[in-house]
């Protein structure tokens, strides 16, 4: 590796290191098959590193890098043509609509820890049942901590679409949690509504 290449690599790694954890979690959750995480990250990083000369210092490297990972996960999910993974237990294949003010949601809101402490796997797998766009938008917001405008740029979609799909994704995820909680008796009262 020549000296300029080494300097480029050092700058790239210096930018990358602080966001590695976020990238890995995001990539793992965005893929239909999380065992492809390292492979997808490798492809995304190779592409980003190749294009790193086009990156302007001082601009948003995090959003720039997430765009490569988002594209790569999208390509991988499409190439595999796999349906989103479906949970065997609990069965969550039919997302219910959720009235945000409904009483049964109140039971979850009153004691969310009682449900979520048992639901790490459910949360992780339930997002696999969202649409590709919903899942990525939710993850970019929740894991990447991006603003709506940044998500719109990363996904190359209008900001209004981001807002609508994020709200829908949140509602569906809560619905799945409620279903799981009801099926497993995690809500102590009023959970049959």
């Amino acid at each position, binding site marked *: *590796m020549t000296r300029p290449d*080494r300097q480029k*690599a*050092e700058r*790239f*790694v210096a930018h990358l*290191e*602080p966001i*590695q*954890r*976020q990238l*890995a*979690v995001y*990539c*793992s*959750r965005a893929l239909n098959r*999380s*065992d*492809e*995480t*390292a492979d997808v*990250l*490798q*492809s995304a*990083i*190779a592409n980003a*590193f190749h294009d790193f000369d086009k990156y302007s210092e001082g601009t948003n490297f995090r959003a720039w890098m997430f765009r490569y990972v988002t594209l790569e996960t999208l390509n991988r999910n499409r190439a595999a043509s796999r349906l989103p993974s479906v949970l065997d237990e609990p069965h969550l294949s039919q997302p219910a609509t959720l009235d*945000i*003010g409904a009483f049964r949601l109140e039971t*979850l*809101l*009153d004691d*969310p*820890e009682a449900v*979520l402490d048992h*639901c*790490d*796997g459910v*949360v*992780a797998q339930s*997002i696999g049942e969202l649409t590709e766009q919903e899942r990525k938008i*939710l*993850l970019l*917001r*929740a*894991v990447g*901590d991006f*603003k*709506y405008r940044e998500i719109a740029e990363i996904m190359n979609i209008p900001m209004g679409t981001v*807002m609508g799909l*994020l*709200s829908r994704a*949140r509602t569906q*995820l*809560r619905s799945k*949690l409620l279903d799981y909680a009801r099926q497993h008796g995690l809500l102590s009262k009023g959970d049959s509504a």
Partner: protein
Amino acid sequence: MNCQQARRHWDLYYDSEGDAELHFQLNEHLASCAGCAEWFDKQSRLESLIEQRLGSEAASEPSAEVDWSGVLAAAGVTPVVRSRSWMFFGSTILALAASLLVLVGLYGLPVLGDGSPSLSRLSAEVHQHVVTGSLRPEFESASDMEVDKYLLGKVSFPVRCPPRKDSGFAVSGAGLCEFSDQPAAYVVGTVDRRPVSIFVLPIESLDVFPRQRAELRREPLSACREGSTQMVFSIVDRNVVLVAGDVERSKLTRVLKSYGTYPHAL
């Protein structure tokens, strides 16, 4: 703005999106409507917990644990790979501490892949102990002045409580701790009724936390996130001041800016 309109905008409020006028109207409504204030709190709490789960490696598939050395090597960035980029901690460590003594003993552990400890991760862990109640401040008071007075003389560097009027921070107590053998003071309280912790260390501590020092050199007012805990930090009066909480970053920045006059560059 009525209750229905306010609740329709919860997403924007929670995500700190939308314009200032909308937030002003929402805050006005929440100040006068206890029902909506409670509803917003509960929605935000649930969403924060979900985000915490989504953002944690512990809940990921095992395959999400990436060997970054291998990834970077395969991607053609090999020569500058310094070490394994991170280590996985989290739930096992969080489950251990129940007292300040345990905490102090514990905070040598979370380190970066290059062997240096992470101030943000340590701070986030202490903050979570405050949130869960496993760490109670040595001194409890809702008075800014009393907290200032308590801390005076306890540490060799100046620590103070940001004025509530400017910061929105309602103090509840303070204490002393250590991060990787570096003396630190903390002030705990709430912003919008959600826990917020302020950590103060002398600037010399950055020798032990090279990553944070590099970040502060790049950006005098730096920000990061550990799980659901947002953090902003800066240099104020020759001290490192870090504000952590499960609230919007803009609110933490307001607390930080109220703490000192303005952020200093390194």
